[in-house]
């Protein structure tokens, strides 16, 4: 015999991919009864492994998944509700966008035209303004901002409520 017995890995390699084995291993197995017995045992095992029954599920996978994907009546209702909300929101956003552009145009006309006409004296409007008037403007801006924040908070709660419904 040319060498020591083959290891378990080499024996398996011999069965699964004889071409990939080195020549010395092949010569050894051909002349070694012990290794031949091991090869026979592994061959039997590998043949039995490939003939094992394929595992399967004891339930209908397609039906189960389809129920989830297509949806139960409750899920369908939820999806419809979500779709309605999405449509409502899209419409609302469109209206808001139009209103926004309208407001911007109005502001431009109301403030922009006089500002352009009186542009030379505009500087004095801010330098000669009284402290009381300035505070009034700032207070109005603060109240406006506060109202906007409250509106956003209210809207946020409405959205969260409709998502959780």
């Amino acid at each position: 015999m040319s060498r020591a017995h083959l290891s378990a890995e080499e024996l398996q390699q011999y069965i699964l991919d004889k071409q990939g084995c080195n020549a010395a291993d092949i010569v050894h197995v051909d002349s070694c009864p012990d290794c031949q017995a091991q090869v026979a045992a592994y061959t039997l095992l590998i043949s039995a492994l490939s003939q094992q029954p394929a595992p399967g599920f004891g339930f209908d996978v397609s039906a189960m998944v389809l129920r989830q994907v297509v949806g139960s009546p409750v899920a369908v209702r939820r999806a419809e509700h979500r779709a309605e909300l999405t449509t409502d929101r899209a419409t609302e956003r469109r209206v808001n966008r139009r209103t926004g552009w309208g407001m911007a145009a109005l502001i431009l006309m109301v403030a922009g035209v006089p500002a352009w006409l009186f542009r030379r004296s505009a500087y004095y409007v801010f330098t000669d303004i009284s402290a009381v008037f300035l505070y009034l403007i700032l207070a109005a801006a603060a109240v406006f901002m506060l109202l906007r924040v409250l509106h956003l908070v209210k809207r946020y709660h409405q959205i969260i409520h409709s998502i959780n419904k």
Partner: protein
Amino acid sequence: MTEGLVAHIVCRLISNEEDRKDIVQDIYLKVFHHLKGFRFQSKLSTWVAQIAYNACSSQLQKKRVPLQVLPEETVGGDGTPADGSILRKELSGIVQAEIGRLPPLYQALVGLYHQEELSYQEMAEITGLPEGTVKSYLFRARKILKEKLLPTYKMEKL
């Protein structure tokens, strides 16, 4: 199309039937929701199998079940009857029982290689293990099974 492959992974890794149901549902819903993200860098079946393996692996981790730890008596133990009455046709049943005693990961790899005929590379992609590790686990699994079957085989020859 992928059900057989997913069954190989889920049935080998998860023993509880109810857990299997939940996991299979979870796997296919993930596939459904992430299908848009599939970039054709591997076969679709490999991608689905990868999702299946990860889902099972997470489940086992949650339950603290080791994927690849060998029971102490696994190697060299003898799960076959000692009276030599085993016939060749019973061999398949014995192999099946012995596969069931292997660690879950070994069971899955044995099934994927010998029944689904996946390559080492595909199995490495699915499990996220290096190809060498996959080979090594498979060698070890077969060695364990052979040790169990050797007495049977010898008796059959007699």
